[in-house]
């Protein structure tokens, strides 16, 4: 069969096939519109987010809006989490108390504040080289899980650790350094030194 004849035959056949089925296509647009109208509210959050990010690539204004909205969401989420989750709240409290301790120590040299976050603990003590490793109990007066005590100490280098319900806790986040001892760690803080060491 000649090339042109075959091509014409192919065109005619395919077009005829569709034209015979054309009645199936009547009203398809209405069907699609109806389906999409019903479907739109069902769009998942992931799809919405993907759509939003894809649109971002086209418009600078949308890009800035999305970044702004995301930042605000994360800010509120951060505040919410810090209020609700005890561990995070504890960390914030430790930071606050550390600030207070630093201010207090700077104004009243020789006072050393020991702070240990231990929500739910029964007893928290600090042991150290300043009193031959005898336990000194920390208190949690406001029951927020942050245990503390303030010890008057002469200038010097002190090794210490916390004991939380009988368990050794040698790595205080507020320590100036750590040393290894008996297979574990002890914290070290300095009193009466210049610089950032207490």
């Amino acid at each position, binding site marked *: *069969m000649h*090339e042109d004849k*075959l*091509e014409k*035959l*192919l*065109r*005619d*056949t*395919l*077009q*005829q*096939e*569709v034209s*015979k*089925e*054309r009645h*199936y*296509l009547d009203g*398809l*647009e*209405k*069907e*699609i*519109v109806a*389906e*999409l*109208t019903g*479907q*739109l509210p069902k769009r998942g959050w992931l*799809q919405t987010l993907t*759509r939003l990010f*894809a*649109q971002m690539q086209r418009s600078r204004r949308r890009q800035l809006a999305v970044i702004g909205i995301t930042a605000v969401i994360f800010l509120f989420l951060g505040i919410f989490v810090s209020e609700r989750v005890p561990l995070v709240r504890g960390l914030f409290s430790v930071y606050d108390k550390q600030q207070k301790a630093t201010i207090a120590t700077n104004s009243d040299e020789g006072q050393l504040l020991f702070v240990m976050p231990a929500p739910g603990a029964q007893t928290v003590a600090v042991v150290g080289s300043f009193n031959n490793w005898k336990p000194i109990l920390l208190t949690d007066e406001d029951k927020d899980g942050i245990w503390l005590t303030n010890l008057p100490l002469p200038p010097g280098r002190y090794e210490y650790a916390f004991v939380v319900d009988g368990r050794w806790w040698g790595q205080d986040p507020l320590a100036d350094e750590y040393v290894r001892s008996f297979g574990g760690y002890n914290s070290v803080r300095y009193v009466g030194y210049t610089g950032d060491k207490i």
Partner: protein
Amino acid sequence: MYIGSKEEKSSAYHVQDEASLLRASLDGEIEAWGEIVNRYKEAVFGLCLGFLRNHADAEDINHDTFIRAYENLYRYRVEKRFSTWIFTIASNLCRNRLRYRRHHPIAPLPAQMEGGCNPATTIAQEDRQTQIRQGLSRLPYRYRTPITLRYYNDLSYHQIARILSLPEGTVKTHIYRGKALLRQEIGEMEVINHA
């Protein structure tokens, strides 16, 4: 411009160009998308029917293509041809349906179409068209798809290559081989008929 009722809106969409219809669709005007469906439904259906050789599947995929295209319209880049983009979606959906059909086979498209008795066409032409239909149904998918896009959708080799994600040379080869196979099939059938 304020356009009031739904009817007024859809009649306004009839005269709009494709780009503004797409922009309106992207902004949530589903009626604008309805007009796009109206303009492309036949072309997409023809492609699906040519690819799948099955009415029910072609109708399904035709429908799914417009739904899928609307849901992913934000991915469409205005600088590209819309027809190429929507044909690519239809082509991918057809491929998926064929994979499904490998495990769930159904009867293929009948060679003699119902209601095909057009008095204007001669019996010989009808025979030829039946042979072409049978030949297309037997043709491997890789040859059938570019042939449909070329001879039904009237696309260039370049567009076909983009839709099928193939090099342009491969598209040309597939069309050439597909036609050769068809010619061979028609020849064989003619021999059988004359015997």
